[in-house]
């Protein structure tokens, strides 16, 4: 009986891990593709799929035939012991001995390539050049009026990184702080207008932030907040608050009432309850919202473009200006995407340890 249960358990663990690995595989596939792409040469990216870096069988040229002018390319063409039309040759014909004939170019080229299917190993033309280009900023060379080659170093990604941190850290913590107070107020305090204000907050969840940009910029111009860190923190706070309040409200309002009752009986004030009891208990919710807010701020382009501008350029701005206006420099986009992903992933791993079971263990009565 016990052994059966054990094997049952093993079996279910296997199934669970199997399902998870399958889903994660699907999830990873696009990213892996781009991760590999980010190491490839900019030309290779367009000529073959990223999976071509793995060992695979490929047609390798082993010779070529140039047809002489006497051959009529519009009829059946005798070559290597077979007769085939131009169209057939262009599609490629595999000879009985495994070699393949492929016409290259149009009828005027008169060129046929003989190839053989062979194994190709791991691609060896992968490099970190794309990353170098992104981090240092692509070097741009062109000729000036005197005919000199001018080389201009790209932008300062390190500075942009710092600016992004200066924007993202307070723009993450401030809304959490404000939202935690508000969520506590909405969940556990009685006051007139509670429903009204709470409705407002949920309704604000759906407001596209684009409608606020112009009025806020007008106010900022008057207050001289344009281009200041304070301005952009407040903006991100304003745009992030509805979700922060909503998520934290959901968590804080579901905390056991008995816990708070006990604290009130001990004579604690609202403020101490919030700071000493609620906040520590809400760490998982705080941590999960912190991650999202951090990510949104980190990846934001438009808000920082409008309120912070060029003076303190953030990382999305720096990356956007490396990649040309119309150009789809995929090799830079891919590596840039990974560079800017590093910190958010680090934050995720850092905060992940707060998502642990048993924060509330022992505090709940059955």
């Amino acid at each position, binding site marked *: 009986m016990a052994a059966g249960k054990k094997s049952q358990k093993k079996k279910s663990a296997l199934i*669970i891990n199997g399902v*998870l690995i399958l*889903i994660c595989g699907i*999830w990873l*596939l*696009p990213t892996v*593709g781009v991760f590999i792409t980010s190491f490839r040469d900019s030309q290779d*990216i*367009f*000529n073959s*799929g990223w*999976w071509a870096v793995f060992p695979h069988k490929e047609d390798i040229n082993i010779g070529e035939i140039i047809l002489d002018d006497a051959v009529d390319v519009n009829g059946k063409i005798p070559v290597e012991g077979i007769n085939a039309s131009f169209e057939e040759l262009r599609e490629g014909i595999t000879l009985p001995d495994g070699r393949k004939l492929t016409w290259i170019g149009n009828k005027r080229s008169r060129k046929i390539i003989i190839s053989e299917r062979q194994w190709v190993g791991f691609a060896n033309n992968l490099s970190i050049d794309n990353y170098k280009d992104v981090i240092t900023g692509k070097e741009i060379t062109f000729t000036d009026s005197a005919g000199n080659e001018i080389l201009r170093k790209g932008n300062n990604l390190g500075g942009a990184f*710092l600016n992004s941190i200066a924007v993202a*850290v307070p723009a993450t*913590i401030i809304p959490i*702080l*404000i939202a935690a107070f*508000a969520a506590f107020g909405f969940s556990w*305090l009685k*006051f007139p207008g509670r*429903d009204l*204000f*709470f409705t*407002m907050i*949920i309704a*604000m*969840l*759906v*407001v*596209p932030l*684009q*409608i606020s940009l112009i*009025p806020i910029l007008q*106010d900022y111009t008057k207050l001289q907040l344009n281009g200041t*860190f304070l301005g952009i923190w*407040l903006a991100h706070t*304003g745009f992030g608050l*509805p979700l922060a*309040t909503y*998520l934290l409200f*959901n*968590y804080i*309002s579901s905390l056991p009432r008995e816990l708070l009752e006990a604290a009130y009986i001990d004579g604690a004030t609202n*403020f101490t309850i*919030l700071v000493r009891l609620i906040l520590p208990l809400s760490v*998982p919710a705080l941590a999960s919202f912190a991650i999202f807010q951090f*990510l949104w701020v980190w*990846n934001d*382009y438009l808000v920082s473009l409008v309120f912070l501008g060029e003076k303190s350029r953030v990382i*999305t701005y720096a990356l956007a200006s490396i990649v040309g206006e119309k150009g789809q420099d995929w090799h830079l986009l*891919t590596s840039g995407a990974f560079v*800017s*992903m590093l910190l958010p*992933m680090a934050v*995720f791993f850092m905060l992940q340890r707060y*998502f642990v079971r*048993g924060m*509330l263990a022992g505090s*709940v009565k*059955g």
Partner: protein
Amino acid sequence: MQGPHEKSCAFAHFISWFTTIIGRVFISLFVPAITFLVLWKVFLFLRDSDAPQSIIVLVAILWGVGGVAMLFVISNWLVEQLPGNWGRRLQPFVFIGPAVVIMGWYLTIPVFRTLVLSFKDPLGQDWVGKGWAIFNNYKFAFTDRIMLETFRNNFLWMVLGTALSVGVGLLIAVLADRSQFESIYKAIIFMPMAISFVGAGVIWKFVYTYRGEGVGIHEIGILNAIVLALGGKSQPWLSLPPWNNLFLIIIMAWLQTGFAMVVISSAIKGVPFELLEAARIDGATEVQAFFKITIPYIKGTLITVTTTIIIFSLKLFDIVRVMTGGNNGTNVIANEFYLQRFTYGNTGRASAIAIVLLLAVIPVIINNLREFNKNRRAF
């Protein structure tokens, strides 16, 4: 102050009482004043200083975070100084005040401005005549061919996108909770969230891209490569209505599942172990325990996550903008809003579209309020 004479004792008592009250009042004024002064000075320093960037960044972070914390501590302290019931009555507003004020400034007031603009001419410049003409922008929003298309698409996004994200997020959160490799699985599902929209656009171009047919053309998109390897014909996935909507929704699910998973997972962590153990001892299978204990326990979180993702799917436009530009029947409301507002300069029309978006979410809000009132047990 030292050594008061006996005669003047009563007077001294009065002075003492008087200065205490005055002192309270003065401190009540002075402490915030000092705080604001310090904050203002640092703000000026940050705005005008030429100090090394790293120092500015450090000061900025300390200043911003510390400043907000101090504002709360001080205003709470002030309210607690108030006599009698006033403190109790005002304290909730100290707690929710900053959130309401900031949201009011950044979102609510702009919404009302938008409402006004939506009744003006399409450009949002002048008032249009009298009567029904003020609804012209709404007439456009509800009758224009592109708008009707966006309604259909947003409905698809809302239903399929939310179902996929929440469903897979829940599945992962529950399963990963029972696996020893939990953090790895969760990191993988979470990863797309860390990628910017531009990056995500590139990633999915490498999935859906279509090079066409012809001699010597190699597909570089993995989806077409798989289809070709299986003996099929490559397809221009993103220009095949109505299926292209589904392919775009998959991108959203890929991005948003991480959100659903993290929030649901943190709720699952909150399910008391004792409850589950008790159910197991009573002979419930894992599946039964899941539906009888876990689901009811995390119901609030599920509603929250679903609401958030529904709203996200209504607001979404980046994916569409990056991947298809809204062509071939893939346009969505928010993208049309963006185009009307910023590309066409039709502020009035765009405002009406934004208001329609707000209206669309009213049922969701009502449902949420109902849930909210159900749990209403405030002190």
